[in-house]
């Protein structure tokens, strides 16, 4: 059926070549094309390649498995990381006391266990880059990034320094192409989200824990030592505004309060017990809650689960999340057609993410001339696509993550629950563009996918082929050739030409 749609579409619009279509799909469903990949996808057939990407369990990915084994952070579970973090904090405090006792007024920093812990945190960013660059399951990686951003958690907030790895590995990754409702419930129960949006501290007013000793214990590393005394609305608000219904989803402040009451008691075990999800009966508001025409009676944790299921299946949620998916895959300001197609698939399949994506990828809007090369890459997309195109090896040092950060998108470090923006206006400004040019010049020096050719015309043609799948503009070609005119060293010529191509306007687009 999809092939038929595609053929019908191709009849309307001046048909792009099979390779152009493949390049477009690789730019959106993947982190750009590796050299010659547009041709190989075109040979398989772009729609067949998309179907394979929608079924990642059947895409072998041996190289990524090998690379993942280099990352120590994947060997530690949440409790291990919590313990290491606690040790690091204690060690730092001890050193501060000693330094102060010795009359040393310089602040001790970056020493011992805290530095090791920070390095582990850095590994998480590296791992994201390696996966995006190396994995054969490209659409899965793109969707992991999409949901991590949709359900954003800031790694710099207290306990989230050690809760984030399990959030990525256990909450997001296994569900990135699953069912939206499952994903929503998983994020709601994730310690990382419970801590980030303060629900871990939300208790029914007047409630108190059963044991005195328990009362004294602070919640998972937060510097606030005082015991929470009432409901906290933060999670409830962002759940409605960002995760589900959307800002115009038609809810009121009173709705937010009722939702917050439903989630009282959803909290986290102390770090020494593994910092897992726990429902605290004593903290739960037992009164009746009225929200969205529903009444929730004293039903403990099940109230929250029922509410999440309700929210996941609201039309406003389908529309809000579908529009966001279309902004990612189709255009910054996506046309109604692809959004409506996504919502229809969502309704039909009760939130099967793969069906929703398939509807977007088979919608005429996705393939329209206006959509092709209309989006500017985010910093993460820019760096990873450059790495893929040039054959730069994404190693486990922090340099590529630092590059992404310098371009304005430090991974997992967006403090606001909105996540990073998807739009050109957020990413393109004079400082950021200069930073991209510098990044391009640096990456160009390591380019291994283009041979050092003496003939300048051949060199530019090879770059056009391998980095841009033949889409380099005539203007870009002529400017690069002009710059090469007096250069005789072929290695120098390659670095200059690749740097200009990666830093120039053609490669910023996808």
């Amino acid at each position: 059926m999809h092939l038929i749609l595609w053929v019908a579409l191709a009849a309307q619009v001046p048909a792009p070549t099979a390779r152009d279509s493949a390049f477009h799909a690789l730019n959106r469903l993947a982190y750009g094309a590796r050299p010659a990949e547009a041709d190989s996808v075109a040979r398989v057939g772009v729609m067949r390649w998309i179907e394979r990407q929608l079924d990642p369990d059947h895409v072998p990915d041996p190289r990524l498995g090998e690379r993942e084994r280099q990352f120590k952070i994947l060997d530690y579970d949440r409790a291990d990381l919590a313990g290491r973090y606690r040790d690091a904090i204690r060690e730092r405090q001890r050193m501060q006391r000693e330094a102060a006792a010795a009359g040393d007024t310089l602040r001790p920093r970056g020493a011992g266990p805290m530095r090791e812990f920070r390095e582990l945190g850095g590994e998480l960013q590296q791992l994201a880059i390696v996966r995006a660059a190396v994995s054969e399951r490209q659409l899965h990686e793109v969707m992991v990034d999409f949901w991590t951003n949709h359900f954003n958690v800031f790694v710099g907030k207290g306990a989230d320094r050690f809760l984030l790895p399990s959030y990525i590995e256990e909450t997001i990754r296994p569900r990135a192409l699953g069912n939206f409702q499952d994903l929503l419930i998983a994020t709601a129960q994730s310690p990382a989200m419970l801590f980030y949006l303060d629900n871990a501290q939300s208790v029914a007013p007047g409630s108190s824990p059963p044991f005195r000793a328990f009362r004294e214990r602070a919640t998972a590393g937060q510097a606030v030592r005082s015991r929470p005394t009432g409901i906290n609305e933060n999670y409830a608000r962002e759940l409605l505004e960002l995760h589900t219904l959307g800002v115009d989803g038609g809810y009121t402040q009173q709705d937010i309060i009722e939702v917050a009451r439903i989630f009282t008691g959803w909290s986290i075990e102390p770090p020494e017990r593994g910092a897992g999800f726990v429902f605290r009966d004593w903290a739960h508001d037992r009164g009746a809650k009225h929200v969205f025409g529903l009444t929730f009676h004293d039903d403990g944790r099940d109230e929250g689960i029922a509410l999440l299921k309700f929210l996941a299946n609201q039309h406003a949620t389908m529309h809000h999340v579908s529009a966001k998916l279309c902004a990612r895959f189709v255009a910054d300001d996506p046309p109604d057609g692809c959004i409506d197609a996504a919502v229809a698939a969502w309704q039909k399949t009760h939130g099967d993410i793969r069906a929703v994506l398939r509807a977007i990828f088979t919608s005429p809007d996705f393939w329209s001339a206006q959509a092709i090369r209309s989006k500017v890459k985010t910093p993460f997309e820019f760096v990873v696509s450059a790495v893929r195109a040039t054959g730069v090896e994404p190693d486990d040092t922090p340099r590529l993550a630092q590059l992404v950060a310098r371009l304005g998108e430090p991974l997992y470090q967006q403090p606001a629950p909105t996540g990073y923006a998807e739009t050109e206006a957020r990413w393109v400004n004079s400082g950021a563009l200069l930073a991209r040019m510098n990044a391009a010049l640096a990456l160009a020096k390591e380019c291994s996918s283009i041979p050092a050719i003496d003939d300048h015309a051949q060199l530019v043609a090879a770059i056009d082929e391998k980095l841009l799948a033949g889409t380099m503009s005539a203007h870009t070609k002529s400017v690069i050739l002009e710059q090469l005119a007096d250069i005789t060293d072929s290695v120098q010529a390659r670095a200059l030409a690749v740097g200009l191509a990666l830093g120039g306007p053609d490669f910023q687009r996808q």
Partner: protein
Amino acid sequence: MTISRRIFVKNSGLALVSLGMDPLFLARAVFGSYRPLPSHTVPYRPVLVCLFQRGAVDGLNMIVPHGEPAYYQERPRIAVPAKDVVDLDGHFGLHPSLAPLKALWDNKSLAAIHAIGSPDGTRSHFDAQDYMESGTPGVKSTGDGWVNRYCQHDREHADTPFRAVAFGPQLPRILAGTAPSLAIDDLQAFGLRVPQEGARDRLTRAFEELYDGAGTGLLASSSREGFEAVRMLKRADPTQYRPADGADYPPGRLGKTLLQIAQLIKADVGLEIAFADCSGWDTHVNQGSSDGQLAARLRELGLALAAFNRDLGDRMRNVVVLTMSEFGRTIRENGNSGTDHGHATAMLALGGPVNGGRVLGRWPGLSLEQRFEGRDVAVTTDFRDLFGEILSRHLGATDLGTVFPGYTPSPARFLGGIRGT
């Protein structure tokens, strides 16, 4: 033609328009009437420099309430002894490390603001910094920062890429948003990072040409702006900079950053708002009193601000430096001779337009019933009242309602920190 003249000419034109039909005229009349008239002899634009003391500075040991017996009762080990305090008004005094700023207090260009903070009671660094930068306490989903929103809604100076600059590797939350703003880690390295000048110039021209051919979109205009900025800075030649009048910046990141801000102001590239972080204020353990950990941080701050003031000299008449911090610290010292997360703190405002020589804001007192939640200095000034006053009376902002959504700024609540005309 230098940028400052361009802006001056442009401002004059706008001033004429606003006398007539400008729909913002009424708003300007309310908020703009206190703005000093542009001097025709000194066509410098007003500049705001924000220093964020990340980690929550102990306002009570920075601006010491030495006239309050409770201050000494609650802090037996870390209070600054009255004999060491640099007295300001008989009740408050500067921490001795800030002595280099006393001359500025005496010439009325330094004011302190006490008991200032957020209406939100959070004691989380993350949340409180977030609120102070987004300008929307209690609302987490605000996507942009208040400085950026000011730039979005006040487009008079939108013609220079150096209008809003953060000194550091990344753009902070306060500057995030759709209005163009720059993060500069090192002024001398701004532009393409190519060691040889000849190669750098050549690549610069090549990239310019590439983007000029890319049409009229945001990519092309941003590239033009970026290279214009590089050229402006090259003309100003930051590598040759020497601080004026023997100004001696202290070693360390803060001194280096303030020196670069001074450079950029003097380069006349159109800087309106500069932002920088200075960290190290989270003194839970062994905070110290007249000497020690906090004293060392304050010494660096005092020396850096004094050097900045000296370096800029006459230009300080158009510059306001404002320190801010996410919250203050507990009134009572803790078991580790430190202080824990509190509520209200103190800020400093420095510069020619500042109505200085005064401690501004209503002092709530330190007795038990005067405290916030029984432990912290209560907030008597919402930080948005101070930020709003500086934006409108110093920078000439006309629409504070859009800069601080959900908040109705009122000149009646302004503290009078900026001089009237």
